[in-house]
Structure formats: structure tokens, C-alpha cells
């Protein structure tokens, strides 16, 4: 082992770190996973758990679709507490302009082998009777799914541990000159992976990952009220914006029958307290689309920080400013979806296997060329 303590040290026990651990361990590598807190306690524990194909760019599509198919392959092995449900997504169109976008997306996905269905206003109402009247229609993506992220991360880590991976929690971690310091000890590995999400610039200074705060609210149980994940097409405008705070209608049915209400995006907000104005706007938006939500019981509101990059693509591969560290971070709101795909192409790449989708668009070294143009 060339004097190294491990083949791979993964820092971050969230969904991306867990997926990396799973990939490395099942290939027979000696793996160590470190986290300063608990499994899935960061963005993974705060987010929605939506597995969704996206078409913002070819690169985003490639990674989300690839990763979605990997989740489908994993599905039979997932434990029950992961609560994987292929409920599908419906992108909701409120007017004709948004319906044009629906048709464009349908065409885009059709050309790339992703099954989707254009929904008329009537068909939409049949599928989701509690949407307010007057919607123009929508796009159903039946292969999208939802799951419960903390248990998904735990599942991946447990599987990695069955293959011999070690997990050390609750101690802070530092990395320098290829050495990982934690618990008063030093560890070295062929591959050191920074999968610490929103905290990744703390571990590897200088990387372009910024916090993008989000809010969520969960309700009491209303089984049968909602069948699919519903997202407004305006969501894309919200996710696209790099400067302003925004909200978008984004609703998820949990297997428990609880409704998860999102979503919001803010820049520059560092504290984890609930921002009442943003929360109110987000909830108002949800009530505009589904009026009956108004009298549902909201049990808790919370916030999370998405790790965002300037070009909205994750950083997967060697870190330009420290080539002893590999990055697997910057997934913004697509961490759950792209975790398993990220891990697969990263580990393929570093072990000399050709990744099934090109890794170039996500390599951190693109930053030097692209970010200056942002």
C-alpha cells in the first residue's frame, strides 16, 4: 500500500461522501470515512430527497440522468427506511408561455430517451386534483423519484462498511500536504476526497463553493393528498438567478403522507435561522398553487445550505489548487440525485476506468477557464 494507511479517505458523511465510500469500498479499496458530526447531518439532512432529471444544460442532463438510472439499479437493495418511491415529477405550467416550455422539455427528453408525457389541463387535474383550477397543464416525468436522504446516506455507508470501510464520526478534520489530521492522528491515502458540501471551502481553501440557503416546511399526515413531486416551471427561473433571493412552488409527498413544502434560494445568508419573509413568500406561493394547503398543520420549518458553484455544475475531480485532494462537492440542489453518479465517474476516473459519461464538464480545472467568464 506504499506506506499509506488507506486507499481512499473520504471526508464528509453526507450523501455524496457516502456514495463515494460505497463506490470505493465495493471495488475492494481500503476506505476511511470521516465527518466532524453525524451521518447526513449537513445538507443531506435538510433537503428534499428528490431524484430528478434536469435539462438546464447537456452536462447537467447527462449527470442527473446517469445518476437516476444508477438509483434505479440500486433500488431493489435499498432498505425500507430509505423510502424510495418512484412517484414521478410533474412540472406544472400555469399559462401558455409555460406550456411552450413543457413542449420544449418534452422534445428534449424525448430525443434523449427519457420518457415524459405532456399533460393537458384536464389530465393534470385528474392526476393532481388539489391543484387550483386554471392551470394550463404540465409535464409528467414518471421515472423521477423521492427518497429519505439521511437513511439513504446511512444505507450507502452501511454497505461500504460491509465491504470493510471504516467510519469515524464526531471529530474535526484538517487536510494538509496530502495528510489528513483527525482525532489526534494522521492518515494518508492514495485518494483523499473532499465531499463536505457547503463546508468544502473550509477544508480546501479557495474552492468556489458558496452557501445557498433554502427553507422547507413539513406538515402533518394527509395521505393521498399529493401523488407526485410537483414543481412550478418558474422554479427554473429561481434556480437560474445568481443574485436575487427567490421562492418557487415545489411540493413533495412523503411516504408518511406528510407534505414537504419548498423551496427558496438566498445568497449571502450565513445564519441558519428561519427568515420569516422568505418563508412567508414560499408558503404563499404553495398556497397559490394548492389552496387547501392553507389549513394543513405545519409541524416544523427549517433551513439548509446548498453548496453552489458559479456555473451550477458540481466539482468532481482533482482540485486545481491542491492536486493531492479530489473534490466531490458543489452539487447545489441536486446532491441526492447526482450523488451515486458523481461517485461512479469520480472513482472510474481516478482508477483509470473510462467513465460512462464524460467527466470533463465537472472537472474542477474547468474553473480556471470558465469561471472568469461568469
Amino acid at each position: 500500500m506504499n506506506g499509506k494507511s488507506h486507499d481512499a479517505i473520504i471526508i464528509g458523511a453526507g450523501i455524496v461522501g457516502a456514495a463515494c465510500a460505497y463506490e470505493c469500498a465495493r471495488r475492494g479499496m481500503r476506505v476511511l470515512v470521516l465527518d466532524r458530526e453525524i451521518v447526513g447531518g449537513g445538507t443531506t439532512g435538510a433537503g428534499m430527497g428528490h431524484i430528478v432529471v434536469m435539462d438546464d444544460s447537456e452536462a447537467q442532463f447527462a449527470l442527473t440522468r446517469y445518476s437516476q438510472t444508477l438509483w434505479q439499479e440500486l433500488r431493489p437493495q435499498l432498505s425500507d427506511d430509505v423510502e424510495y418511491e418512484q412517484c414521478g415529477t410533474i412540472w406544472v405550467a400555469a399559462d401558455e408561455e409555460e406550456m411552450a416550455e413543457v413542449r420544449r422539455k418534452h422534445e428534449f427528453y424525448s430525443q434523449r430517451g427519457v420518457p415524459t408525457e405532456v399533460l393537458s389541463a384536464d389530465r393534470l387535474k385528474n392526476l393532481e386534483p388539489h391543484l387550483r383550477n386554471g392551470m394550463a397543464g404540465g409535464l409528467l416525468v414518471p421515472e423521477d423519484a423521492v427518497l429519505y436522504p439521511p437513511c439513504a446516506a446511512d444505507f450507502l455507508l452501511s454497505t461500504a462498511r460491509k465491504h470493510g470501510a471504516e467510519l469515524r464520526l464526531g471529530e474535526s478534520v484538517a487536510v494538509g500536504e496530502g495528510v489528513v489530521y483527525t482525532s489526534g492522528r494522521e492518515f494518508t491515502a492514495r485518494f483523499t476526497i473532499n465531499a463536505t458540501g457547503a463546508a468544502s471551502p473550509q477544508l480546501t481553501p479557495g474552492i468556489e463553493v458558496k452557501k445557498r440557503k433554502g427553507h422547507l416546511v413539513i406538515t402533518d399526515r394527509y395521505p393521498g393528498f399529493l401523488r407526485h413531486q410537483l414543481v412550478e416551471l418558474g422554479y427554473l427561473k429561481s434556480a437560474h438567478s445568481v443574485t436575487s433571493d427567490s421562492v418557487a412552488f415545489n411540493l413533495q409527498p412523503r411516504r408518511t403522507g406528510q407534505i414537504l413544502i419548498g423551496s427558496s434560494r438566498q445568497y449571502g445568508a450565513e445564519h441558519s435561522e428561519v427568515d420569516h419573509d422568505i418563508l412567508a413568500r414560499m408558503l404563499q406561493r404553495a398556497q397559490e398553487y394548492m389552496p387547501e394547503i392553507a389549513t394543513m398543520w405545519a409541524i416544523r420549518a427549517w433551513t439548509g445550505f446548498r453548496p453552489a458553484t458559479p456555473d451550477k455544475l458540481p466539482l468532481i475531480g482533482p482540485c486545481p489548487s491542491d492536486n493531492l485532494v479530489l473534490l466531490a462537492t458543489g452539487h447545489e440542489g441536486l446532491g441526492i440525485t447526482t450523488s451515486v453518479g458523481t461517485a461512479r465517474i469520480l472513482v472510474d476516473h481516478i482508477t483509470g476506468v473510462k467513465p460512462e459519461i464524460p467527466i470533463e464538464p465537472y472537472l474542477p480545472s474547468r474553473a480556471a477557464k470558465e469561471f472568469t467568464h461568469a
Partner: protein
Amino acid sequence: MPDSVNLTVNGRSVSVPHGATVAVAVAIAGLPCRTSVTGEPRGPLCGMGICFECRVSINGKRHCRSCQTLCDQGMDVKTND
């Protein structure tokens, strides 16, 4: 002020003293308030609006804490809703 209040619990008529809570009406009807997520029957535990075991539907509104709701004449209460 009337001495008793009449309401229905799962369609059955129940009479309670004035000032009684819906939780008491459900108890007088001999019913548990709700079914837990794994199917257990449940009734009030804390009696003060904290445990949420006493949740019932009142006049169509779901998940109401019955131990903190006074009975009204003609109320329609449903358990396990």
C-alpha cells in the same frame, strides 16, 4: 346555560356536561382517538395539548387536539381520520 351538550362521535350521538372537552366525548363513546402509524389504537396521554395523541377530526377539520377543544352543540367528531 344548558347542563349538557349533544354532539356526534363517528355518527353516534353523545351527551356531555357543559364545559367538557371533545376528548372526554370520545372517551364516553368508548373509542380511541386515533390510530398510530403502525396501527395501534391511541387515546389522550398528557391531557394538555402536548402529546398529540388525542387528535380527531372536528367538523371536517383534521388533526385537532380534542383535549383542548370544548364541545359545542351539534359538533361532528370523527376518530381515526
